[in-house]
């Protein structure tokens, strides 16, 4: 079978299934008695196995199969859920992830899984040997002959009941032609035919997999009906591209003789309805029912390749530049009809912009979902008990931002687990609950998304931080006395600072927090620390919703135009020369009772221009956190939406410039990085 065209879907879905397994396993660890969770994991593993077997990834299928056996044993109460058992299952999930990763990067997904398979087997055989036989049968794509179908308790009950009411139950084994092109379509047609004959109880592989063509050429449908076997066969054969149909009576237990099932009883319709209604109600919990249900909702979303969204975004960015140009022209021409049309177009493209930006938004969940595993692992290594609470995983952020925040968050979480949360003994001694809590919280507020990493650990010792900062020469003694708490805690993110007394594998090598800070600031965000000693700390990250289109204020200095992001601007003002004060030989102004330093952009940026004497100065008051500065400019041009562009790979680390944008006239304007200007 030609499988390459499905490879992408296969990889995507495998990742989803593995993620689901991961999440459910963590859940299971908390509620080891909840068999519903085991069922969930089992379902994901089962689907994964079927898919990988169909795609020809034998190692993947093999390992999943062994894992499934263990899960099956758990499900049947043959094995108890313990941390050790889960460790092995987690390890095999790791292996599966590695294989999928390999396949995604063009490899063949082969991997030496003997060791882990042996461990899985050990667990499995440690419990019960006969289990194995049963689970072997569960493999649909591998069992070569007959496609024996395994029924769960519920399904057998339904079959039994319908038989008692005079229905027959058949297993219809359909083989499609080798060259069948639209297998999913054929499956659909066959299901329609069968649904007219009676009630479909189960199919192997499951309906979803059939619809997505995750099967070779054969599948089995179990059906309860009043029709004759030959009749069903004839009806199904009428669907084109069907190679062979075998209708065999359902034989589950010896007491149900096969000839009995062929009998057609004449029970009244009332009974039939009752039976099916009852069945439908139960279907909600049952495997088959769930998949049938999802058939109706599965078409509400589509998968779109990220690259297409990116090129859509790029095209739109071009449009934004032209929009800027058009707005400029219409202002110059001052033609009422043109102005009206341009305004209309601006509004529409504004809406379009929102939609496109929204399309690129993905929930932070995609980053968050790998953390529970990581925290669990760390806690085990450090012998701490930690509960990771994730709040607001559905909060959405632009993909470009999402790509950047993974590493900083890993770092902050490791930090919280390693340095934040105390050891069990310490916690006990302090009268805290032995289990530490780390909260990862995301929420939207205005044009920003906030992500907080909070722990209820030891907190930060203000004095210790200050002493170290002074020792390392990061601040002077005098400066240190004036710092606020949050400024002191901010010091731990300066480069060359680490308060960890001992170095562990996990964090505390003196690098890291400064990198976290740099990364977050490089994407236009900021980070703030709050801590109460003995109670815990909160690292709060503020992030922009998107990085690609931002609102700026255009200003002019000499002949040069610069853009200042609106997010940093507090307001613009015109001040009198005589209002300028001097403090410590620096020029400052009094802005609403606060002393704000004046920064002359022409001097900072060495703008070539003649000295012009003016009694008034135009200033833009910008902020970074609580700190402010007043940028002196020549004139304000106005507010505009611009597309943020990078300066390329050659020009890196340009002083106080975070990027560039292309203006309506085709010229490049640089975007001022206010964070770098305010010290």
């Amino acid at each position, binding site marked *: 079978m030609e499988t390459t065209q499905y490879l992408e879907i296969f990889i995507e879905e495998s990742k989803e299934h593995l993620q689901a397994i991961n999440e459910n396993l963590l859940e299971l660890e908390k509620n080891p008695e909840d068999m519903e969770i085991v069922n969930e994991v089992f379902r994901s593993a089962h689907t994964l196995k079927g898919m990988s077997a169909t795609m020809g990834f034998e190692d993947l299928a093999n390992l999943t199969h062994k894992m499934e056996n263990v899960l099956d044993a758990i499900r049947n109460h043959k094995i108890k859920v313990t941390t050790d058992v889960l460790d092995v299952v987690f390890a095999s999930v790791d292996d599966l992830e590695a294989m999928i990763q390999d396949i995604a990067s063009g490899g063949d997904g082969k991997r030496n899984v003997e060791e882990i398979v042996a461990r899985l087997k050990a667990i499995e055989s440690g419990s019960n040997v006969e289990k194995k036989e049963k689970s072997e049968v569960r493999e649909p794509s591998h069992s070569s002959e007959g496609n024996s179908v395994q029924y769960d308790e519920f399904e057998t009950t339904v079959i039994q009941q319908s038989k008692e009411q005079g229905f027959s139950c058949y297993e219809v084994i359909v083989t499609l032609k080798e060259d069948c092109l639209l297998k999913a379509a054929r499956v659909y047609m066959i299901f329609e035919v069968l649904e007219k004959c009676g009630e479909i109880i189960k199919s192997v592989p499951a309906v979803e997999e059939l619809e997505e063509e995750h099967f070779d050429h054969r599948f089995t449908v179990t059906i309860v009906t009043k029709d004759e076997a030959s009749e069903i066969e004839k009806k199904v054969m009428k669907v084109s591209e069907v190679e062979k149909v075998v209708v065999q009576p359902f034989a589950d237990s010896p007491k149900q003789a096969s000839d009995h099932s062929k009998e057609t009883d004449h029970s009244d319709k009332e009974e039939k309805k009752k039976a099916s209604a009852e069945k439908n109600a139960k279907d909600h919990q049952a495997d088959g029912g769930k998949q049938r249900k999802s058939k109706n909702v599965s078409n509400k979303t589509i998968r779109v390749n990220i690259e297409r969204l990116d090129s859509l975004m790029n095209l739109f*960015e*071009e449009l934004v*530049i032209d929009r800027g140009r058009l707005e400029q022209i219409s202002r110059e021409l001052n033609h009422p009809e043109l102005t009206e049309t341009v305004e209309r177009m601006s509004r529409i493209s504004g809406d379009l912009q929102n939609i496109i930006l929204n399309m690129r938004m993905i929930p932070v969940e995609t980053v968050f979902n790998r953390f529970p595993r990581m925290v669990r692992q760390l806690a085990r290594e450090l012998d701490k008990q930690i509960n990771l609470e994730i709040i607001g995983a559905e909060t959405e952020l632009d993909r470009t931002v999402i790509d950047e925040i993974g590493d900083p968050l890993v770092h902050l979480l490791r930090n919280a687990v390693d340095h934040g949360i105390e050891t069990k003994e310490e916690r006990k001694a302090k009268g805290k609950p032995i289990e530490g809590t780390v909260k990862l919280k995301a929420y939207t507020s205005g044009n920003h998304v906030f992500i907080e990493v909070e722990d209820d650990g030891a907190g930060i010792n203000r004095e210790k931080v200050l002493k170290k900062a002074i020792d390392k020469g990061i601040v002077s003694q005098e400066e240190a006395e004036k710092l606020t708490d949050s400024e002191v805690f901010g010091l731990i993110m300066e480069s060359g600072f680490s308060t960890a007394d001992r170095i562990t594998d996990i964090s505390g090598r003196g690098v890291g927090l400064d990198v976290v800070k740099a990364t977050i600031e490089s994407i236009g965000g900021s980070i703030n620390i709050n801590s109460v000693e003995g109670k815990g700390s909160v690292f709060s990250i503020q992030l922009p919703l998107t990085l690609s289109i931002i609102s700026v204020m255009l200003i002019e200095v000499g002949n*040069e135009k610069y853009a200042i992001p609106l997010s940093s601007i507090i307001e613009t003002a015109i001040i009198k020369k005589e209002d300028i004060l001097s403090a410590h030989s620096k020029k400052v102004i009094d802005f609403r009772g606060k002393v704000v330093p004046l920064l002359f952009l022409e001097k*900072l*940026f*060495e*703008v070539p221009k003649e000295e012009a004497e003016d009694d008034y100065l135009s200033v833009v008051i910008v902020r970074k956190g609580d700190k402010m500065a007043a940028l002196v400019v020549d004139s304000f041009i106005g507010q505009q939406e611009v597309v943020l*562009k*990078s*300066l*390329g*790979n*050659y*020009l890196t680390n*340009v*002083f*106080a*410039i975070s990027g*560039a944008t*292309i203006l309506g006239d*085709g*010229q*490049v*304007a*640089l975007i001022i990085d206010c964070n770098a200007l305010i010290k």
Partner: protein
Amino acid sequence: MSKISAPSVLKVIAFQLGDNEYALPIHQVQSIERLMPITRVPKTVPFIKGVINLRGVVTPIIDLRTRFGLPEKEFDDGTRIIVATLNEMEVGFIVDGANDVLDISEEFIEPQPEMVGEIEAEYITGVAKWEKRLLILLSLEKILEK
């Protein structure tokens, strides 16, 4: 540029800078542009003239004269920007004029030149004598080194 077998040919773009003729391998050159407005980027090294809008891509511009320590010259009608790419870096070079595209047999390329100016010597991979012309072959890697 290893010399494997005899008549191996190097395709280059030849351009003028002062009295000398220089060349860059054509596979490193993306396009040749007329001069366009350059936005100055403050606080960068003197040979970085600024950035241009090259069909939607913000591209940094290096003045090769300044880079090689040659005297500055007013831009004129002949001034061109040669856009080159190296390791995903896209950079434009201001040159006095772009001359033509040449096929040079590698046998005419001599490795280490002695007679050219000292400052530019470090950016040079070789010299080619070609039909009475003297072409100085430049190393993009070294020019872009900081």
